[in-house]
């Protein structure tokens, strides 16, 4: 009987009464080794992409036509690309873009999706119906379609920039988040503490902000962690079609795939960005899974 109060009470206190939901989750998360490894990997990758280029004065842009497509060597750790640029630098700096776009677009979609879903879920009834209809309508449009159209609204020169891409991706991802949050809010709405708050005269927005959302935080976190890899992959699709950000993992991988031929292998062009991309996404997915298992009391308990 851990944490049992020293002075015993007449009432039978369950073993884990002393832990809040959050502590409970954290505890379980810590037990999930793989998730922890994932978290550690992400931190490492973040460090590599953001700190190393400045520390080592890496140059991803200067072209050198004499040294095109060289395999890894002492001078070029990851080799060079088709214009002679240092691939090590490109992979790391590209990571900056991919990660930034991933997190930023996710943040945007979380922001929009959470509030949309919370409003729809809380007010319910007709409001909910109408709001979800919009979501249905947007769901009926293939998201790549929307993304591409939005991308094309920017001129040719602006297109390689990060902003249009992250806008386009963020604008499309909020649908899932909205649906999930709405479901959560629908259930939370019936809980006693919400009823109590209402009786006490708190307004809708206040209730949403101070009561409901904090309790949905777990779900939000889980889905956010799982949205980042989805966004990064979407950006790589855009790169493959020629519409992505100028220097990102997706772009590097897309270029590498474009030169695969049976005569000469340029394995390093495909390997390094795929490795970084794969590890990042893998870790994020694992972390998200771990978070989900940790915050959802029903899972994994058999």
């Amino acid at each position, binding site marked *: 009987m851990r944490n049992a109060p020293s002075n015993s009470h007449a009432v039978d206190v369950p073993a884990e009464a002393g832990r809040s939901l959050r502590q409970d989750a954290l505890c379980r998360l810590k037990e999930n080794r793989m998730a922890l490894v994932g978290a550690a990997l992400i931190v490492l990758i973040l460090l590599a992409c953001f700190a190393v280029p400045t520390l080592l004065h890496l140059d991803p842009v200067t072209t050198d036509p004499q040294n*095109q*497509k060289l395999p890894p060597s002492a001078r070029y750790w990851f080799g060079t690309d*088709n214009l002679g640029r240092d691939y090590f630098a490109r992979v790391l700096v590209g990571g900056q873009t991919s990660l930034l776009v991933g997190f930023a677009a996710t943040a945007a979609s979380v922001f929009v999706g959470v509030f949309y879903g919370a409003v729809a879920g809380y007010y319910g009834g007709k409001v909910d119906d109408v709001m979800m209809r919009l979501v249905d309508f947007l769901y009926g449009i293939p998201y790549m379609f929307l993304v591409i159209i939005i991308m094309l609204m920017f001129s040719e020169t602006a297109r390689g920039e990060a902003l249009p891409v992250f806008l386009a991706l963020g604008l499309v991802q909020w649908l899932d988040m909205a649906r999930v949050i709405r479901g959560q809010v629908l259930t939370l709405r019936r809980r006693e503490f919400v009823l109590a708050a209402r009786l006490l005269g708190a307004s809708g927005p206040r209730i949403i902000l101070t009561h409901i959302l904090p309790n949905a935080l777990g779900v939000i976190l889980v889905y956010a962690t799982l949205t980042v890899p989805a966004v990064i992959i979407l950006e790589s699709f855009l790169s493959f079609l020629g519409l992505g950000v100028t220097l990102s993992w997706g772009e590097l991988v897309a270029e590498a795939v*474009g*030169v*695969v*031929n*049976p*005569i*000469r292998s340029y394995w390093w062009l495909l390997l390094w960005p795929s490795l970084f991309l794969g590890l990042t996404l893998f870790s994020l997915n694992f972390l998200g899974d771990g978070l989900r298992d940790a915050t959802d009391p029903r899972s994994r308990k058999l």
Partner: protein
Amino acid sequence: MYRTLISVLLAFAFTLLLVGLTFSASLDAAPDYRFINGTEPKTLDPHLATGEPENRIISALFEGLTRYDPKTLEAAPGVAERWTLSSDLKTYTFHLRKNAVWSNGRPITAADFIYSWKRVLDPALGGEYAYILFPVQFAEAYNAYKSYAEAIRGPLKAKLAALIEKNDSIDAARWQKFLAEADAHGPLKATEQKVLRDLLTFKQGSLNREQLNAFSQGLDLEAKLLLEKNAEARQKLGKTAGFMAPDEHTFVVELKAPTPYFLEITSFYPSMPVPRFVIEQPGNDSDWFTPKKIVSNGPFLLKTWNVNERIRLNKNSTYWGHAEVRTNALDVLPTEQLTTSLNMYLTGEADWLTNNLYPSDLVQDLRRRADFHSGPALTVYYYRFNNKKKPFNDVRVRHALNLAVDRKLIVERVLGLGQLPAVSFVPPGMLGYDSPPSKIGLDLALARELLAQAGFPGGQGFPEVGILYNTNETHKKIAEVIADQLKRNLGVAAKAYNQEWQSYISTVRGQGYDIARAAWVGDYSDPNTFLDMWVTNGGNNQTGFSSPIYDQLIAYAGNLEPFLANPEGLLAHLKEPAMIRQELEGARAGSVAQKSAAWGKIRMQLMREAESILVQDEFPIMPIYFYVNSDLVNPRLRGFYSELEFRDGKRAPNFKGIHPLRDIWVEKGQP
């Protein structure tokens, strides 16, 4: 119970069935072979198409008066089974075969050719290859004179008026610049008015207002004459002049002057016939060549055209020569990405990868393969000098620069596609033509000496030179390498700079450059197509180079008659007059065949003399390299000749890269 499982399995099976059904909806029978053609053709209308990919397909669907013999690329009978040439070498009479039919059974008659040639020359149609028929009497008048007249009456006169208003007089240099910018040379190139000709070539001194006004009046007259000629052409062409059909199976063509390469033109697709009865039906004008509507007369029929997927050609059993066509069906594949095309060839998905459609950095590996066929192409890459601008107006400077460039290095290191270094302007291998010995090459000692003689020892005092190229990775590389070589070899400071296409064109036309990159593709395999651009004030000259002897040589190569009447005047100036003198007799008398041969030799010699002015005397340009055609061909494909074989054993490169699909087949029983 098991019901769920069974229903799941059933759903799965049903899905697979659907897949199979929708899948087979998109398939034809297997073809004999497939080849990768380049980009998706924009149109299959022979009179509007312009690219190589379109050419290959159109030449399989349609057939002109003559066709290319696959082994020699000489003219072989097409719709015309035989033809005769008049003794003055200016009139061809084609006799059409009686069993030539359209694919719907209608016979092909001379009237079809009249309609088709008029259509391609129709200015309203806007076909870019209309000029290919300009050797025919009245063709240019029909096609272009009206727009020339309008250009003269409109923008040219307006600009001239503005010029006259602002200036009492104008010096020669500014006058020439004005003429270039106002596009005056095009519409006026054939003018017979002396006043206009003199003023167009005015090089020294300055013009006063009176002369300018005379020019203006000359323009008015010229416009009037052009319109009259145009009206005459519209009245007569196809009926009594240019080309005519005395009866259903006879087609007569009158040329302006003897044109030895005319039979190449009659094999070339813009001169092919088109089905009037399909085109003139309402609503068909932009899609008459699509599979459902098209009617054609060539060895193949257009069965399927799935855009961005493939084009299926099936053998045309109504074609008069169908017994000679050994392929039943073939697929033409479009491609976007060079790597994918190469992969498809290497894995057997395609049997033939046409012209240079692979990533250039793999060339060294591919060149060693047995199925790699390459040969020189009819295209030259060169730099123009601004012959009017100091210091390039000094021939020694131009010669020196030409001697200081290491072309071999460029071709091997920068390009690597097996291109040939060029020290002459006309690509090698044209039958009957030998380029004259060239004084261009790599000779640093001589280069330095010449430069010193010109007043710039060691490059001192030489102004910084700008090398202009149109925006492109390869042009950039070459320009930078050459700039580097000039610096290291001569001490001349040079800087490469680029402009995008439109600006580049306009800068070069207005001669606002020092050195400018250019390339020229030959339209037919006769040196004239490379040499006639360097005449004084020629539309494509744009260097300021001018040599009266050169002009004469080219003019006579275009029409030998005046030369034969009085050859000595020119012969005195030539380097190898004996070569011409020995042919003069045969040229004047003798049978049509003898005359033809002699005229041919004289022409070739005249052009050789002309090119010698370029590469031995004046060096107005810097040739750099000749392009190369390369194909990857699966050995089971026969009938592919990357080297032409003539009956007398002579060989020549197939530099037009023409491989008629009619004569390609697959050897059965080969893997």
